[in-house]
């Protein structure tokens, strides 16, 4: 067969076939539709939800329970607690991950013991523990380590070597105790996530960077961590969302400046149980939805230079350039 004859062959008719049918899918869809309809019916017709109590007016002349002042205050507390404990968790987590990967055996075992301890103890127990830790000290401050003992060594009775200190029960209680309990626990999980991220990066990357004369800090900041972020961000999003919900544990510290605790107070005052729980549920849903949207954009930022879509787009552009800027197959 010559080349000529292949090039003049007519293009066969495009395939028009009857698609495969999926009856089981339709049955499944039907079942789901019925369940959804039942659920919506429940929400709308069952007056025990007391939607107006939640949204509009929970006592005469007062706003719906979701929007009362103490509850909004609690919401602010929950957000603040999430941000501050996650900040501690992420920063300390990075430090611990780096320690864990250190060539120095002592540093890496300290990191190991840290993660072992804080992953092994339930957050609820940690929250109660930190709420009671101030029993151990009268005052907490900055100064010489073993200041009191050094003072006694030199016969000074009231020397404690502290430059600045405050009463332990003022510092290590309520919000700070809750923040530390959650943050230190989070650091253990974040350390594992960051370690996985760093280890996922090809050795050749840091080799190339080091060969260019970059310091180890620069290699980490400029080359390894930005790439590791692709691996780190999705589970970190998970952690933040889990943290929003775990803030409710600090009610046991106790911390009153928190959403769930405040709503429980309303419940105790008004003897209304279910609508209050639903109000809390709606707030948590809203918070976590916002976070998930944010996560989408952060993930997109750190996937620069990766991904099939970006590559395909580029290849298409290259082909178009080669063909003189015309899109192939487009009608003239």
């Amino acid at each position, binding site marked *: 067969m010559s080349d000529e004859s292949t090039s003049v062959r007519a293009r066969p008719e495009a395939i028009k076939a009857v698609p495969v049918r999926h009856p089981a899918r339709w049955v499944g869809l039907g079942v789901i539709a019925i369940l959804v309809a039942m659920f919506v019916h429940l929400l709308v017709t069952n007056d025990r939800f007391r939607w107006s109590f939640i949204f509009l007016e929970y006592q005469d002349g007062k706003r719906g329970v979701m929007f009362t002042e103490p509850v909004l205050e609690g919401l602010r507390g929950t957000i603040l607690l999430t941000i501050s404990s996650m900040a501690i968790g992420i920063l300390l987590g990075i430090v611990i991950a780096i320690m864990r990967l250190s060539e120095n055996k002592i540093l890496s075992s300290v990191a190991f013991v840290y993660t072992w301890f804080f992953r092994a103890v339930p957050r609820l127990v940690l929250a109660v523990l930190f709420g009671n830790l101030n029993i151990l000290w009268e005052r907490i401050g900055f100064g010489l380590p073993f200041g009191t003992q050094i003072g006694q060594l030199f016969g000074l009775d009231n020397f404690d070597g502290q430059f600045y200190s405050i009463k332990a029960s003022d510092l290590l209680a309520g919000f700070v105790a809750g923040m530390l309990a959650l943050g230190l626990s989070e650091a253990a999980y974040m350390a594992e996530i960051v370690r996985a991220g760093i280890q996922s990066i090809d050795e*050749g*990357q840091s080799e*190339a960077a080091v*060969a*260019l004369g970059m310091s180890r800090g620069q290699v980490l900041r400029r080359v390894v961590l*930005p790439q590791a972020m692709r691996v780190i961000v999705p589970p970190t999003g998970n952690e933040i969302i889990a943290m929003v919900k775990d803030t409710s544990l600090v009610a046991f510290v106790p911390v009153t400046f928190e959403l769930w605790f405040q709503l429980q107070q309303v419940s105790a005052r008004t003897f209304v149980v279910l609508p209050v729980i639903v109000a809390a549920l709606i707030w948590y849903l809203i918070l976590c939805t916002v976070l998930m949207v944010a996560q989408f954009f952060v993930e997109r930022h750190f996937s620069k230079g*990766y991904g099939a879509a970006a590559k395909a787009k*580029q290849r298409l552009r290259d082909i178009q350039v080669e063909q003189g800027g015309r899109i192939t197959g487009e009608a003239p």
Partner: protein
Amino acid sequence: MTNASSSDAMVRADNVHKSFGSLEVLKGVDLVVRPGEVCCVLGPSGSGKSTFLRCINHLEKVNAGRIFVDGDLMGYRERGGKLHELGEKDVAKQRREIGMVFQRFNLFPHMTVLQNVMEAPCRVKRESKAEVRDRAAGLLERVGLGAKMDNYPGQLSGGQQQRVAIARALAMRPKLMLFDEPTSALDPELVGEVLDVMKGLASDGMTMIVVTHEIGFAREVGDNLIFMDGGVVVEQGPPRDVIGNPQHERTRAFLSKVL
């Protein structure tokens, strides 16, 4: 061994030994490379040629022997007859002067081509951004990738990536370039474009050590050819002589397989 003093050699390796655990990879390698010279290193896989190259810029620590680059002892300072290990900063300072190109390119995938080339001069040497940008653009133009500056490495072919890697190394204005099998990971049709860039560099007078399997390149561009096997230099000399008329049995056996 050549009787060149360390002062007029760009690279001088004296009796370099390197082992990984109980495995001795380099068993006494000597080498002298003069400024402007292109030295090609040939040898079967496992002969220690890549390891030797990595010892030159101290990516691997040697166990015995000395390596001097432009008169500087790599990785150590000799004081009072005693060797002191150099700190991270001093090693980094030595490495700045030595460009390295890897078999697997190792471009930074999260940066554009231009950012890849600009990164080290801006961050390591703290040169002004505008100046570095001009130089980087010039270098990319020179390796034929002026139009790809804003692409990410993942959008380039292997040959293009390797040319970017060469430009990235050159941006630090090195006095020595190390190439670790720069064409081994490339499709055959892309090898030529990378070798062309390297030929251009050689004719501009860059001192280069090239670990390669490209016999043609070694014969055409190399001033000196080293054949390594079993962790030692078996034979060396002008490429035409070594390739055309190998003296050692092992060189002959290797060349008969690859030619």
